[in-house]
């Protein structure tokens, strides 16, 4: 099977899946969380596609292309290349991943409102069983249905039978259940009687065996006996009724509610950080006394416009938070020299040099085109021969020299525009822009890896908070979250007014209450719009249009409040998995902590977990070296 694997390609994947039962070879991975991937054979000349199910534990990082085959890195102008690489084979992966050829799966069963999926083999044994940590198995079952001939048991709609298209028996199965030849098969009859007498737990599990016995009874030479057939049908009917009636509602509801998030707390916005508050934090040498307190105030209410210009220099890492007044004066002098030196580099290019430097000329042309169409409706940038447009261009061109490999990418002028508007100083604006770019650099990289990762993470978070909506999006070809691309690329610059976007950015720059808070704001907006999004079976086109048209209509303060509530719901959740934690910069706990919750969903919350953290205390969500390592591993995976 290992060798065959090279001839397969992924056609489906779903994250956040806990291995509940596994063959002895993989017992050590039971209760670990991972990803399920369906592989499809890609051998040419084969009429019949073959499929393989794979479960991979989470500590093996997944190449982004597994999840988003749609992404292809393309450079249409120069140096055309694509990085639609497959996964790079990791020798260790082979031993850890559970791979099951579809040939040996004969049936599978959905339990606990779609939270659990169990596969059975031809000898009625459980092959493996999975718990869905976020969302349910609907999408996976839908994927299985598209790839396999699957029938549903008439009475147990949660039991699915896979028709083996390779086998000659398949032809017979295409006929109705009534035409099955079972006359002489006493073992089947005994079996049906047997499970009828059994308890709910045993019989429901064993019910999957019916399929296999039916399979085994087919030999094509015997003919159906009407009496036996009716007996069987009646028995199955009764059995089905019993099963339906004996479905323990308490168990189902219990499991379902165990996955619910804690109640959402209401948060309100506070007043912006005032000049008095700011000044009171500065000691005699101009050092800030309590940086965390300042950041928390900014997170809760933003910055008053009267001190925004000064405060942004700290938020954007131009001024170190610990610096003294005199250190800042010295820094500005150095940075000013550095800026003008870089500016002179490109300003002093001759026309001939430019002509011989195509990469530079292309960047310059892009900058000029975009500067001419950046926020021209603002008075500051309006009109012909506007000097501020020239400054905007000079800063962006100097940034090209500062970071030539990144160069200029569309969207960057949007990020600079409010900064220059506020700073009114070319050099200060440049260094603040550098600070902003350092925070969002990965959005603009050539392979778009940062954007892919963010869109993926957004879906993971949405799935945790609102699995129904997240599933809806997947089922309607929106699982890639492309419709949020503009939100994330320029941090809602195109959706908000100038004042709102400045307020929003300064809130995000604090890094409170967690990393990637803008993704939680996105989740808040999507959740707020959930009814509209799921209305009238809206699909990719309609949802993209709807989201684009939210521009100018968002109540960002309300959304920040909601997002703060969502953060605490997630942080306080007993079922917070390691697939969600790193996205928000929360410490990874390993899967053991989670397992105990999985096994006893009715237990009281684990006090040792992060769930007991006070709602406004954010000190203990600072990044640990482990998280940085995790981030690095994600990052390197996209390289």
């Amino acid at each position, binding site marked *: 099977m290992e060798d065959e694997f090279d001839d397969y390609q992924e056609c489906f994947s779903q994250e956040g899946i806990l291995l509940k039962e596994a063959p002895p070879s993989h017992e050590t991975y039971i209760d670990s969380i991972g990803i399920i991937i369906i592989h499809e054979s890609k051998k040419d000349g084969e009429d019949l596609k073959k499929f393989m199910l794979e479960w991979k534990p989470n500590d093996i990082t997944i190449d982004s292309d597994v999840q988003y085959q749609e992404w292809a890195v*393309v450079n249409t102008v120069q140096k055309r290349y694509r990085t639609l690489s497959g996964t790079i084979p990791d020798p260790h992966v082979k031993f850890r991943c559970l791979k099951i050829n579809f040939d040996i799966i004969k049936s599978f069963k959905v339990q606990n409102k779609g939270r659990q999926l169990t596969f059975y083999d031809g000898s009625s044994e459980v092959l493996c069983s999975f718990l869905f940590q976020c969302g349910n198995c609907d999408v996976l079952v839908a994927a299985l249905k598209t790839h396999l001939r699957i029938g549903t048991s008439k009475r147990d709609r949660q039991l699915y039978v896979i028709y083996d298209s390779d086998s000659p028996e398949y032809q017979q199965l295409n006929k109705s259940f009534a035409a099955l030849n079972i006359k002489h098969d006493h073992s089947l009859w005994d079996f049906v009687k047997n499970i009828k007498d059994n308890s709910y737990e045993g019989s429901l599990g064993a019910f999957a065996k019916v399929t296999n016995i039916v399979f085994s009874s087919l030999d094509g030479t015997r003919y159906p006996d009407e009496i036996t057939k009716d007996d069987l049908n009646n028995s199955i009917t009764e059995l089905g009724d019993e099963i339906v009636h004996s479905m323990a509602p308490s168990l189902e509801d219990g499991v379902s509610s165990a996955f619910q998030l804690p109640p959402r707390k209401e948060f309100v916005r506070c007043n912006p950080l005032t000049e008095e508050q700011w000044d009171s934090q500065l000691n005699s040498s101009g050092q800030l006394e309590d940086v965390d307190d300042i950041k928390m105030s900014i997170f809760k209410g933003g910055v008053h416009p009267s001190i925004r210009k000064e405060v942004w220099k700290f938020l954007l890492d131009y001024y170190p938070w610990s610096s003294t007044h005199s250190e800042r004066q010295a820094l500005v002098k150095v940075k000013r020299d550095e800026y003008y030196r870089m500016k002179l580099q490109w300003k002093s290019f001759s026309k001939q040099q430019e002509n011989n430097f195509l990469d530079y000329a292309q960047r310059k042309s892009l900058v000029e085109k975009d500067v001419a169409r950046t926020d021209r409706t603002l008075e500051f940038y309006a009109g012909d021969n506007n000097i501020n447009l020239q400054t905007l261009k000079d800063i962006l061109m100097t940034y090209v020299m500062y970071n030539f490999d990144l160069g200029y990418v569309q969207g960057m002028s949007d990020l600079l525009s409010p900064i220059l508007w506020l700073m009114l100083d070319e050099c200060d604006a440049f260094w603040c822009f550098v600070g902003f770019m350092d925070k969002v650099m990965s959005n*603009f990289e050539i392979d778009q890896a940062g954007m892919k990762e963010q869109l993926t993470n957004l879906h993971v978070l949405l799935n945790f908070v609102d699995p129904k909506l997240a599933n809806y999006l997947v089922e309607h070809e929106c699982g890639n979250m492309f419709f949020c*691309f503009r939100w994330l690329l320029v941090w809602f610059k195109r959706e908000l007014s100038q004042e709102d976007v400045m307020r929003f950015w300064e809130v995000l720059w604090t890094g409170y209450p967690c990393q990637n808070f803008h993704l939680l704001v996105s989740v808040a907006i999507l959740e707020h719009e959930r009814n509209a999004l799921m209305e009238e079976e809206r699909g990719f086109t309609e949802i993209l249009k709807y989201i684009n048209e939210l521009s100018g209509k968002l109540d960002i303060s309300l959304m920040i409040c909601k997002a703060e509530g969502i953060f605490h719901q997630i942080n306080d959740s007993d079922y917070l998995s390691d697939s969600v934690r790193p996205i928000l910069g929360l410490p990874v706990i390993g899967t053991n902590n989670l397992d105990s919750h999985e096994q006893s969903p009715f237990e009281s919350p684990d006090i040792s977990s992060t769930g007991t953290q006070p709602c406004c205390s954010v000190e203990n969500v600072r990044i640990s070296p482990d998280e940085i390592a995790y981030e690095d591993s994600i990052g390197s995976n996209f390289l």
Partner: protein
Amino acid sequence: MASRKKILLKVIILGDSSVGKTSLMNQYVSRKFTNQYKATIGADFLTKEVTVDDRTVTLQIWDTAGQERFQSLGVAFYRGADCCVLVFDVTAPNTFKSLDSWRDEFLIQASPRDPENFPFVLLGNKVDLEPRAISAKRAQQWCQSKNNIPYFETSAKEGLNVEQAFLAIAKNALAQQNSTIDLYNEFPDQIKLTNTQKPSGSGDSCAC
């Protein structure tokens, strides 16, 4: 094919940054022009009902970002396209040079059923501006080399030739959609055929 059925034609506009993709779309759909359009981030579309050969069709016109690195979004947006509109700026030679790339990349990402005959339309935009860098003759030669792509010289600003160009686009898109449907009809049992053939001797169907 049921002629009463509503017909939706999906059109994708491609071309370098700032050649006027958004302006052309807005001029055609809303008959307005402003030089205050921002660079497109992500993608957007507008729809317009139009009558082609006595049939009312809805054109769904997709506008995308022009910078090449954002084309990695392409597949999601190109899927199901009935016509691809390539745009260049007649005053900017580089935008003409990239046309091959745009065309190739579209064919790779959209992977239409019949790439040889997939309809493209070329628009040379900004003819109201001087100085001109790409002559009509040069553009037409390129079109001829690509299986006779229709060519229109337009000005989104003046509204020049925009209506005519999009009518041609709609016609080509409609013809494409009809031919795709014919192609389906030729092989109605495609899926069944593959499944009933070749019972491979897999020994996995075990008896209990």
